[in-house]
């Protein structure tokens, strides 16, 4: 309950911020629509030259684009703004105040800044997924949809854990502003199914920067291509990575001594 109250307070503050810069919000939504148009155009260019891409049809690629935008939106709305704030708080020492709060510091660092208008982008992403699956003509059972949602969540948790580890490294290196640029860069690889990539790139986006775990794999579950053993493996990996991330975070906090001292 306490956590929910905090979240809604964060949300309210961020809505007010978005309303303060209304023109900016409108321009951003228009730009976002433009990029969606470009993404659909690029898919249509690809599929005017071929029927399948890495074994997937256009409907599946549209659904994949939806999943990609779902994860990407969470990144843009939550992760990037908070990273910026976090990096600054390490440099100027305002991290002190975060640690003093009687709430989990990892939670505070993650959710205090939200780009609120991105919520409509989540709706768009869900529409893309539904339309894509419909176009692909896949017969999906409720259990497949359930595993899809579950694996999308576990994938997001894995990426989130990686992010926590990356920003926690700032406790050791102090000046580490580029901590998540690499994450941001490789995110783009999630737009297409990993089956099209050469092996070395597939290894990177599955194991090192596991964007594929949050995009390609949930969709594979939706298409009924995963074995139940694999599903449990991904769930176990996500729990393990979250556990590792919180250990690294705590170790980092111990290293932190404030900017002035």
């Amino acid at each position: 309950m306490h956590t929910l109250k905090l979240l809604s307070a964060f949300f309210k503050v961020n809505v007010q911020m978005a309303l303060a810069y209304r023109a900016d919000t409108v321009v951003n939504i228009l730009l976002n629509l433009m990029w969606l148009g470009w993404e659909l155009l690029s898919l249509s260019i690809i599929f005017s030259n071929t029927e399948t891409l890495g074994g997937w049809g256009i409907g599946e690629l549209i659904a994949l684009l939806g999943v990609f935008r779902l994860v990407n939106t969470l990144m843009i709305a939550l992760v990037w703004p908070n990273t910026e704030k976090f990096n600054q708080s390490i440099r100027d020492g305002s991290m002190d105040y975060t640690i003093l709060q009687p709430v989990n510091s990892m939670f505070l660092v993650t959710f205090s800044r939200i780009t609120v208008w991105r919520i409509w982008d989540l709706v768009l992403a869900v529409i893309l997924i539904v339309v894509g699956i419909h176009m692909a003509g896949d017969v999906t059972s409720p259990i497949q949809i359930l595993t899809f949602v579950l694996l999308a969540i576990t994938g997001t948790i894995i990426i989130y854990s990686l992010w926590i580890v990356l920003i926690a490294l700032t406790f050791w290196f102090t000046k580490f502003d580029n901590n998540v640029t690499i994450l941001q860069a490789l995110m783009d690889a999630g737009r297409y199914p990993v089956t099209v990539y050469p092996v070395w790139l597939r290894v990177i986006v599955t194991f090192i920067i596991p964007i594929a775990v949050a995009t390609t794999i949930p969709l594979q579950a939706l298409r009924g291509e995963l074995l139940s053993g694999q599903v449990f493996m991904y769930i176990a990996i996500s729990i393990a990575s979250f556990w590792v991330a919180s250990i690294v975070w705590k170790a980092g906090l111990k290293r932190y001594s404030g900017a002035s001292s």
Partner: protein
Amino acid sequence: MFLIIKRLWHVNWAEQWQYRANLIMYLLYWLVSPIIYLAVWTSIANVKGEVNGFTANDFITYYMLLLVVDQITSNIVIHTFGYKIQDGSLSGELIKPIHPMLTNALVNNVAFKMLTIMGLVPIWIILFFLYKPDFSSASLAGILLAIPAMLLAFFIGYLLSAAITALAFWTTRVYSIHEFYFALILLFSGQFVPLTLMPQVIQDIAQYLPFQLLIYYPIQLILGRLSIEQIIHGYVMSFVWLGIALLFFNWVWRNGVKRYSAVGA
């Protein structure tokens, strides 16, 4: 003048060198999308044998040249200059007797480019061994023709970006305008796919826009894919667009600075 440029070079080179970790991140960031498109198109070409006359090797050579050409012709003036207008740190540069955008910022861009190209070389060699492209259609004559074309393209691109950056004199949302400009480049320059695979409408429009000069035209020159008429057409377009870009930049800058001194200081 030469002495001033030399001094500016020393300062900017030292500055860029200091941020080399940043630079490597930038380089990786910028490498990702061409490599993704390369993977997507070669996988299609491998399945189908060829895509509208493009073999897998054609895509590999195209995107590997794109990595180099894009690095030479692109610029980062929006990132290194945009904030100077907004936070007022431009004032100090304006009272100097040299043009801030056409000297200091330009030299800064070239220093940045030199360093990223140094970083690109080893990565390019690794990609070369991974993909083993067959560059037999590239010729020395093509490369020699492409060098002046890329220089012209760099100046066209630089002046257009500089003009857009200078729009910050009027609006604070210059990054949004720049994002729109960036989308035009993506659509019309051949960055996503060789232009001949784009819908006919886009190809027709691209003929008259400056964006294909930045990427598509130099690559085609190097690969020896153009007829004499097309080569001439490209060079004529380059000079025409250089003229337009110069006029546009000059107009924006002059009026912008007037506004700036009226509001800022």
